[in-house]
């Protein structure tokens, strides 16, 4: 679904990532780890077309990112759910409207979304907060809202960048369980995190591959954990 083939990326000066290859197969569960500043976020951005590789090839659903125009990238985002560490919302819209935003921008009628939206809010435990504005939400609520927003359009892949960075252990367990549930429904999941405890907790519940970025390259780290 998402393939990186010998990809390199450099920000102006030196290379941040090089000779990096990655394949996200349908239904797989990946962790991406490594110290801060090694390029986890950059790698995720390469995976959803926000950045284009400076060398090598990145393919989203079989299409080379370099051949995709801005609209094609936008349309591919409807098949890729993204959760950021500091997730941003439209602060003047309610939580429910924010969660439904991917459907709204895809031009789907609001009435058709209703049932789906209610179920989804129930699933992430935010039914009672549906009419709250994003600035009124706690860190954990924001993360769960971001996850709900990322999956409302039934994406094939969910990319999460430090989804548990701003929440306590309890909440990160809860988010992890939601992501594992998604994966059991067939969604491909890639979580970037530096939290090794989270990875260990996941390993007992799901068949996860752990990738580590070190020395600008991607290494398989499954055996070490």
């Amino acid at each position, binding site marked *: 679904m998402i393939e990186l083939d010998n990809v390199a990326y450099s920000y102006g000066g030196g290379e941040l990532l090089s000779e990096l290859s990655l394949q996200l197969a349908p239904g797989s569960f990946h962790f991406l780890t490594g110290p801060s500043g090694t390029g986890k976020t950059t790698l995720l951005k390469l995976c959803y077309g926000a950045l284009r590789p400076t060398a090598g090839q990145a393919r989203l659903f079989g299409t080379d990112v370099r051949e995709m125009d801005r*609209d094609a990238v*936008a349309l591919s985002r*409807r098949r890729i759910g993204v959760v950021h560490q500091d997730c*941003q919302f*439209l602060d003047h*819209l309610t939580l429910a409207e924010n969660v439904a*935003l991917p459907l709204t*921008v895809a031009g789907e009628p609001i009435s058709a979304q209703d049932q789906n939206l209610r179920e989804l809010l129930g699933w992430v435990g935010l039914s009672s907060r549906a009419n709250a504005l994003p600035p009124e939400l706690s860190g954990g609520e924001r993360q769960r809202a971001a996850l709900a927003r990322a999956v409302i359009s039934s994406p094939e892949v969910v990319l999460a960048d430090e989804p548990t960075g701003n929440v306590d252990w309890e909440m990160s367990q809860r988010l992890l369980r939601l992501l594992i549930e998604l994966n059991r429904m067939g969604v491909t999941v890639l979580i970037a995190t530096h939290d090794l405890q989270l990875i260990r907790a996941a390993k007992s519940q799901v068949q996860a591959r752990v990738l580590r970025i070190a020395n600008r390259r991607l290494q398989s780290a499954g055996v070490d954990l």
Partner: protein
Amino acid sequence: MSLHTLSALGRGDKAADRVVPPTGFTARLTLFVSAAMAFLAVFALALSLAAGRLATSWGDELARASTVRISAPVGQVATQTEAALRLLQQTPGVASARALSEAEQQALLAPWFGPDLPVSDLPVPQLIEVTETSEGYDAAGLRLRLQAEVPGAVLDDHARWRKPLVAAAARLKMLGWVSGLLIAAAVGAMVTLAANAALSANAQVIAVLRLVGATDAYIARAFVRRFTLRALSGAAVGTVLGVGAVALLPSGGETAGFLTGLSFRGWHWGIPALVPLLAAVVAFAATAVAARRVLGGLS
């Protein structure tokens, strides 16, 4: 993108409108500037149209009419007038020639000497009104013949003082149109600035929309629609006020001069209705261009 945007404009999209937060202050400024510009545009239009009318009337009516003045000793006026009329009637290019009656001459002089002037007792020159055919006559030839046959006759074909006036009126008309263009350009510049400000103030909104899969066209539409409607409604208010102000200008009545003629005539009253539409078109284009440029620069 533009066609999409255009169709969405007509249809209206509540959900798309909602994704961009409302901005009170800049919205009011855009409205105000559109209204002010539309007000000025109505005056520029009135000026252009009035100047155009003036140029046409001076050009057409005065060009077709000329005057022969007969100043002769009292006893010879009648014979010379007759001779001049005969000569004029034989001149190719003259449609008709008619000696003004005493009453008409008195009416012409009344503004200067009052109505009680006994014109017949004074050595007032006799005037002959000459109307030309559309081809016109040869003024130099006529002048020579008059000189030979009617020594007291002087031909005044109005061209001498008409030409600079017609030129001035045409120039004034052009100035009016240039003002109109400048006003349209100023509206475009203002909307571009406001749209750029709105786009950068809403950088976070745009980033979120991109993240959840909104296309550039969708994002641009939300801004374009907003600014187009603001320019349209602001300009509509300004146009109504401008037309009202023009309608309330005191009319000069019979002796309408240029200043009192600064108004619309007949179907010309419909032309200002185009001002808000034009403002909307300019705002639409300016916002679409600004949005495309800003969005194109984002990842």
